[in-house]
């Protein structure tokens, strides 16, 4: 049986190779695009080199620290996480170099956060003592956006705090992790009372529902319907995981359908998104422009893709964030999409394995909850871009531009990494 470091090295080699190859192909794209070596060297090419070096440093640094301080950790997590991060950096560079530089900075911050959580977070049982404090802090921070929230783009939903030194933080992303950890702690402690042989004790559901409803209301009032859907689905799955009873999933599914209908009645944005989903061809140059252009990017990529830097993904609006899948599909083709989905699936399997192997209920639910967040968020945005479900405006974990999203996702993996260490 291979030891973790040997397994990590086995994965590191192709990850480093693919990542550097990706950056190299992007660097050569200006010449490849016109098949002419006389094109002058782009002025910002050194930034691409810097990004590649930063990514490599984060990857190797994380692996080295984990090897030193986390013996026996899951050897698959870090290589696959950083493979997707590097790919995301390259894709963002392709369509918005300025954002790629910012994402690089957030990658460095996120790597430090990942390592801090993994090395100093312990086994996270201490969180159970401070769960209400953490939850209140997260809710307060998110509620603050109702008062002083901003949008980095200048218009649209004001979901961010900050703007000082051009730094913006999206509290809902932080709240996402806090709510999952809270749910894990609460369900682990109250499981017997809530799902006992005598049937559900509603008294124990009340605070849980209260927390969940309050969180969702804040998000709905901010029109962050993607995040509120993510919260709802994660809550349902964790209830099912804690109880083992599919009834909660069925009831939740009914509630979700009802909420969707109510949303269509109450919110213009929901009506618009549903109508675009149902028939994007009715207004391809207007409201459905992003959806149609995203599908065109998928079509243009075909099976093998146009090649890094050789497609036209800049035709898709917000392609560095919501629609990064369109960039990937156009330049790397369906095979590239398969590879990315395989990476996400791989990470989810490792997350489920971490959950299964932890003996303590809280840690099981924590690992399972975080993995659920990762997968459900991926499915929601993938589904939106591929027109399986209405578009929700979430980020594709590790691949999309989004500073807070990247940092919180890396923290999520830091927790999984720590929980993967055998007791």
């Amino acid at each position, binding site marked *: 049986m291979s030891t973790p470091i040997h397994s990590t090295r086995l994965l590191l080699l192709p990850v480093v190779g693919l990542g550097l190859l990706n950056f190299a192909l992007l660097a050569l794209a200006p010449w490849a695009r016109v098949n002419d070596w006389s094109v002058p060297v782009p002025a910002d090419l050194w930034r691409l080199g810097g990004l590649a070096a930063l990514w490599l440093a984060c990857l190797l640094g994380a692996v080295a620290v984990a090897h030193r301080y986390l013996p026996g950790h899951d050897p698959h997590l870090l290589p696959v996480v950083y493979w997707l991060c590097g790919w995301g950096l390259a894709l963002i560079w392709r369509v918005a170099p300025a954002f790629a530089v910012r994402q690089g900075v957030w990658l460095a911050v996120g790597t430090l956060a990942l390592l801090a959580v993994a090395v100093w977070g312990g086994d996270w049982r201490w969180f159970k003592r401070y769960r209400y404090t953490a939850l209140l802090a997260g809710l307060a921070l998110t509620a603050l956006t109702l008062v002083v929230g901003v949008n980095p783009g200048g218009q649209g939903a004001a979901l961010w705090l900050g703007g000082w030194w051009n730094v913006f933080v999206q509290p809902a992303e932080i709240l996402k992790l806090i709510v999952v950890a809270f749910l894990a702690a609460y369900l682990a402690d109250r499981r017997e009372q809530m799902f006992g042989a005598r049937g559900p004790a509603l008294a124990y559901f009340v605070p849980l529902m209260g927390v969940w409803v309050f969180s969702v209301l804040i998000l709905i009032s901010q029109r962050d319907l993607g995040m509120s859907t993510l919260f709802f689905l994660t809550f349902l799955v964790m209830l099912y995981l804690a109880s083992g009873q599919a009834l909660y999933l069925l009831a939740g599914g009914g509630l979700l359908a009802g909420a969707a209908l109510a949303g269509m009645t109450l919110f213009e944005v929901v009506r618009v998104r549903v109508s675009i989903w149902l028939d994007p061809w009715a207004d391809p140059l207007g409201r459905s422009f992003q959806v149609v252009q995203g599908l*065109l990017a998928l079509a243009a990529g075909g099976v093998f893709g146009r090649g890094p830097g050789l497609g036209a993904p800049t035709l898709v609006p917000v392609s560095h964030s919501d629609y990064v899948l369109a960039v990937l599909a156009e330049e790397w083709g369906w095979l590239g999409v398969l590879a990315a989905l395989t990476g996400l699936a791989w990470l989810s399997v490792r997350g*489920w394995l971490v959950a299964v192997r932890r003996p303590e209920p809280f840690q099981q639910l924590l690992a399972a909850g975080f993995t659920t967040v990762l997968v459900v968020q991926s499915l929601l945005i993938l589904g939106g871009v591929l027109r399986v479900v209405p578009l929700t405006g979430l980020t594709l974990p590790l691949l999309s531009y989004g500073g807070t999203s990247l940092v919180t996702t890396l923290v999520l993996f830091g927790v999984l990494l720590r929980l993967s260490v055998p007791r």
Partner: protein
Amino acid sequence: MSTPTALVRVAQATLLALWVMALVAGYWGVLAAPDLLARPDNARALLMERRYPRGPLLDRNLTPLAQAQGAPGQSVRAYAYPQLSATLGHVSLAYGQSGLEAALAETLTGRAHLTETERWWHDLLSTAPAGAPVRLTLDLPTQRRADAALGAHPGAVVVLESTTGDLWALASHPTYDANMLDSTWAELMNDPHAPMLNRAVSARYQPGGLMYLLTLAGALNAQRLTPAALMTDPVAEANAQIGVAGWQLACLDRAAPPRQTLAQALLAGCPWPFAQLGDALEAALLRPLWQDMRLFTPLPLGLPQTTLSAPAPFDAAFEAIGQGQTTVSPVQVALITASLAQRGQQPAPRLAQAWQTAAGVWQPFAPAEASMASLPPDVAETLAGLLPHGYRAAALTNAQGQALAWFTAFTPNRRFVVTVLLENGTPAEAEAIGQEVLAGLER
């Protein structure tokens, strides 16, 4: 503690969902791709032209009319003679293609003559073939004269070579500048004068007095009239007026007497005798003639056109004086005139002459249609003999009494036909413009 079974089920469900997403991505990227990529709002083909520019559009003397300019990878289309924009069209990332740029896109981009293997190889490598130059039938000096003569008049001038069908000039005013398309799009779309409309090819107008010629042709062809009677037999009340849409249509020549021959009535622009003649000939004789003159078939030029079917019911009297439901484009009028000049043989019009291979050889385009006999030679000669100085006509175009002006003529050697349409001018003005263009051709 979470139930292991529940956990396994959730894991399986999420992995299945990811697999479904992979299949859906394959649907959009492979199965639905051909239809998606053919959509007009897919700008990728045009974006590719910045890297692999399309070939130039040249006039018949190989003078560039439209060509790619700019550094490699940043090529844009430049139009050397913007007054031809309504014919040449445009290539724009934001607004697509139009005109000849759209009609000849496959040839200009070099894709028309690729094998399937070559196409597949280019798709795989994300490359494109080199663009191919296309030589048009347009003659830039003649085009300049036509545009200068038309001036500020809204309308069209067509110069057609009657033996070959080559269009030497297509003037359409007002026009627009395709070099400025992106910055002026909103203005152009909201302009009530429709500068992007190609009035020579794509617009259809009431023919009015032009139809007197075809009515005479119908009568001669059906032997209801002889050439001698045309020139000698008087018609009573030839200068009578006809009510059309609440207006009284009278002779163009206000001094025309009541007793005239049909030939005199034709040149005086008197509608009454031709309405009578049309009534006598009836739809059974006139409608087939209209069809033989290709009034209801699209022109094989690759440019957008409105095609009409034969009117039903066919009101022979009003159709005979060009105030029925039949409308014509200036190019169609030029073709009719060409058939008179060429003893009844109507040429097939063409704009694109040849394309150049990578080896530098000019390959002619296969003719889309052949010339056809639209009138018996003797009928055509009889009518041509009436028009040594050309023929001018007017048409009532709306209920407000606005009139169109037409002029059509051929050069003394019958090689070229010139047709003028003015949307709000007089027949005399149309004739003056036509004579100016003819003079340049005769030189």
